């Protein structure tokens, strides 16, 4: 049985070799079609990872007017901590904020030139509540406190980014679905042409007593192999693009002193790509064979 399948595999490979131009073209088309959603997926993954490292829990920053005395500050802190909607309050003095800034974002050269510290004292407030509405209410409440110069809900931009990422994911999914259908269609047509050119052979094998599954097998293998190699082409295209993008990203991220790299396709993701592309090729072949094979009966 295994030998039989190996034999079919060998025959299929030789058929691929028989028309190298057409085979290569098909694989490239499938590869390009697949590389679009895969590339989009990889970009989304990287942006998502970046977003996750930037924002842990949502927090509210309350910036104070300059010139508050220590007593005022601790009273304000107590008042914040006693609020049942607030989990934790952290005070960041303007001096330590300046230090942090110098350490983290690589704008230290610029800061060194400043005549005085432009940063205000800040309370970083970690809310107990997590849902958007309660957070918004707390935010509104804090805004009305006259001690604060400015209150900022830090999760807002994360939410916007999340919404954007979701949109991106949806778009990628739609792209993937459409191009998967294209892959099936491409395989369907390739196999249809193959069946037509092998009409005599199919007739003869039917006369000799070949079962439908025997006749179907090389075509299914062909679809599977074509899909799989298409997936491989897509993998190579995406990996090469990422490599190129990362090379130029290095220049960009150096300016911001941030270590950001586009993540290459993980091993499980790569395997999923191969399985999926192979399966789609097989499926296209299967549709084609079930559609066309029964029409060929010995006359």
């Amino acid at each position, binding site marked *: *049985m295994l*030998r*039989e399948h190996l*034999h079919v595999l060998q025959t299929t490979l030789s058929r691929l070799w028989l028309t190298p131009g057409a085979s290569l073209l098909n694989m490239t088309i499938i590869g390009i079609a697949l590389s679009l959603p895969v590339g989009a997926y990889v970009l989304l993954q990287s942006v998502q990872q970046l977003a996750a490292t930037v924002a842990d829990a949502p927090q509210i920053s309350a910036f104070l007017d300059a010139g508050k005395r220590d007593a005022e500050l601790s009273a304000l802190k107590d008042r914040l901590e006693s609020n049942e909607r607030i989990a934790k309050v952290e005070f960041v003095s303007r001096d330590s904020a300046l230090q942090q800034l110098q350490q983290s974002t690589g704008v230290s050269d610029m800061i060194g030139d400043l005549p005085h510290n432009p940063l205000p004292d800040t309370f970083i407030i970690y809310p107990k509540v997590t849902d958007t509405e309660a957070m918004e209410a707390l935010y509104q409440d804090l805004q009305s406190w006259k001690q604060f110069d400015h209150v900022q809900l830090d999760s807002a931009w994360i939410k916007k980014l999340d919404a954007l990422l979701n949109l991106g994911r949806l778009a990628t999914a739609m792209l993937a679905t459409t191009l998967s259908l294209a892959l099936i269609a491409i395989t369907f047509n390739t196999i249809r042409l193959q069946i037509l050119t092998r009409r*005599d*052979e199919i*007739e*003869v*094998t*039917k*006369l*000799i*007593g*070949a*079962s*439908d599954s*025997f006749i179907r097998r090389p075509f299914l293998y062909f679809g599977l192999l074509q899909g799989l190699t298409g997936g491989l082409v897509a993998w190579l295209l995406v990996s090469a693009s990422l490599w190129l993008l990362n090379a130029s990203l290095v220049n960009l991220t150096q300016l911001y002193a941030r270590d950001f790299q586009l993540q290459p396709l993980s091993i499980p993701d790569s395997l999923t790509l191969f399985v999926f592309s192979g399966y789609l090729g097989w499926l296209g072949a299967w549709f084609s064979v079930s559609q066309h094979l029964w029409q060929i*009966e*010995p*006359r």
Partner: protein
Amino acid sequence: MIRFGQVYKRYPGGHEALQDVSFDIAKGEMAYLTGHSGAGKSTLLRLVAAIERPTSGSVLINGQNIRSIKREAIPALRRNIGLIFQDHKLLFDRNAFDNVLLPLQIGGFDHREAAKRVRAALDKVGLMSREKANPVALSGGEQQRLCIARAIVTRPDILLADEPTGNLDAEYSGEILNIFNSFHQVGVTLLISTHDQSVLQRFPARALHLDHGVLQQGGAT
């Protein structure tokens, strides 16, 4: 082995290819199918190989009725029938060896055993030295013998031959008939259609004679 009971075959358009044909060919028997061209010889053979189904009546092959046989059961039935075509139906994308190998691949034979059988079959028809040749490079007689090798390689119980000597000169026909005769000796059931009267004289056997789709002679067993 092959039993026809009041078989009618009507084609769309009203052409009656076979009318009330009844006969019985026993296991191991050799019989000829004769008649002018268009008498229904090919139609009769196609019914035996389940390439077509009778309009009415019963065609029993080894106990299986072609009229009601399920589509999925046809391959197994055909694997037990060696078909020899007038136009050979060889595949030109592979050599002689691989052409003969095809039925064994279909049957799922072990590779080594299959190779042995292919060589035995080629030897039997005298093509041992031509196994690497493409069928295109073979003469008409050699192509016919290659077709025979392919038909016998699975050692089927029934051999059907449609005008096997049709386009061949007397010497080649003789060779091929000798091959058929040797299968008859080992108990294979043979049905050979021919319009060549000299064949019947050299290897006499029962002849089923068709005339305009009606069996005129040889119906009774």
